[in-house]
């Protein structure tokens, strides 16, 4: 082994990583810059948006309620329990709504996209699309990506409202807030940018979720094991991607 072997190994790794990033970027660009098939787009909007509503809503409800309990008991240590409704509203809109909503969608949607497309790959359905003069990227990837980019911010918006409602239930039922005081407390400190930034995060998270599901599905290995691996990687990469993107976006929006 020569002294340069570790360096050349690192170089090979870096080149492989750059090639991978380039391939994913091209894949994303080909998926994004095409007109989605309207039927498939609507079907995906229902799959990704409407059918994720229960899980995102329940997550937001319990998160808002728990956050209210935490913020009230923490705030009481320095006589600031009254700001709890504002903290819940800002926390849900800026951070917890988009991140937890995105994660729940990643768990539900990235896995389902990867499994569906991966199964299509191993059962030759994607080859069949090509023989039927349909571009698999335009037919499978574009509608999913655009549906997710549109649906996840909507889910985040609904999740924000439900999360604040969760806080309101706890605040009014067990922490002694009146309904009017809680609502006033929530709205008085909430700024439009708090909400808009969360929705923008949701759009980026939607892109990450759909892209991850489509990429791993389209590149699934053979057989059930290949589809299983694709599904697992799709969820893991989407979840890590959401956390990383959240950090970058929070820095961009609020630093």
């Amino acid at each position, binding site marked *: 082994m020569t002294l340069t072997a570790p360096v050349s190994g690192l170089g090979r790794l870096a080149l492989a990583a750059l090639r991978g990033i380039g391939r994913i970027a091209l894949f994303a660009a080909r998926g994004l810059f095409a007109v989605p098939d309207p039927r498939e787009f609507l079907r995906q909007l229902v799959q990704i948006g409407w059918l994720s509503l229960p899980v995102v809503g329940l997550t937001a409800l319990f998160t808002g309620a728990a956050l209210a309990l935490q913020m009230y008991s923490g705030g009481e240590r320095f006589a600031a329990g009254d700001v709890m409704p504002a903290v819940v509203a800002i926390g849900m809109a800026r951070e917890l709504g988009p991140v937890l909503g995105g994660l729940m969608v990643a768990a539900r949607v990235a896995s389902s996209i990867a499994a*569906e497309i991966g199964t299509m790959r191993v*059962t*030759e*359905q994607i*080859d*069949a699309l*090509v*023989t*039927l*003069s349909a571009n698999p990227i335009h037919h499978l990837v574009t509608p999913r990506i655009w549906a997710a980019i549109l649906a996840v911010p909507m889910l985040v918006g609904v999740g924000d409202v439900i999360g604040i409602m969760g806080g309101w239930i706890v605040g009014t039922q067990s922490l002694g807030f009146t309904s009017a005081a809680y609502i006033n407390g929530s709205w008085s400190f909430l700024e439009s940018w708090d909400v808009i930034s969360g929705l923008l995060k949701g759009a980026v998270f939607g892109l990450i979720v759909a892209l991850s599901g489509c990429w791993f599905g389209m590149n699934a290995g053979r057989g059930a094991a290949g589809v299983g691996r694709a599904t697992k990687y799709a969820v893991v990469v989407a979840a890590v991607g959401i956390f990383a993107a959240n950090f970058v976006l929070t820095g961009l929006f609020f630093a």
Partner: protein
Amino acid sequence: MTPVLETRALTKSFGAQKVLNGVDLAVAPGESLVVIGQSGTGKSVLLKCILGLESPDAGQVLWQGQPLNAARRPAFLDGFGMLFQGAALFDSLTVWQNVAFRLRRSHGDRRAREIAIEKLARVGLGPEVADLHPAALSGGMAKRAGLARAIAADPKVIFFDEPTTGLDPIRAARINALIRDIVTETGASAITITHDMTTVRSVGDRVAMLAEGRVWWQGDVSAMDAATEPHLYNFIRGIWQA
């Protein structure tokens, strides 16, 4: 006569494994060519190279005498149909939507559905099947629905990839008869990939023996049994040689 499809010295490797090693084949207009060979000899890779699903390392695919490149492929595919080994019906669509997949873009749903039901009838499936999803079909029904999809747009070239795999002898015979009738009726050129000798004799005009990545023998199906080429001789008779 210019062949409809031709491969010249087609070569394809996966890593160190050379799957195709200079494959020369030609299909004349209206001819039914059957490519036979053991499992793993590159038959499906050959089809994928012709379709552009795999890029050959060397060699050429010609369509109507001209290279079948990316620019000409859409026109080729417009007149092409394929029956896949596992039928490859789209799970999310009903049977008629599968059959009419290409037609829905050009004919609208109502007319496309009518044509789909006609094509389903042609392969022996009734209209009651039209609204089922592929998961509700048996293997034989799925193959027939796949065949209906392959012929839905009246293609000039049809590929059949292992059309009888997984079917019992009676259903296999029905599929073979359907393929033969359809190829004769439509005048389409056909390439069938199989290792089923009954299929070879039922659907083929000509046969090509693929082994070790190249064609060792090709000729009329009627001349096949008298051939002495060792790969073909052993294959027909099921003689194993290490």
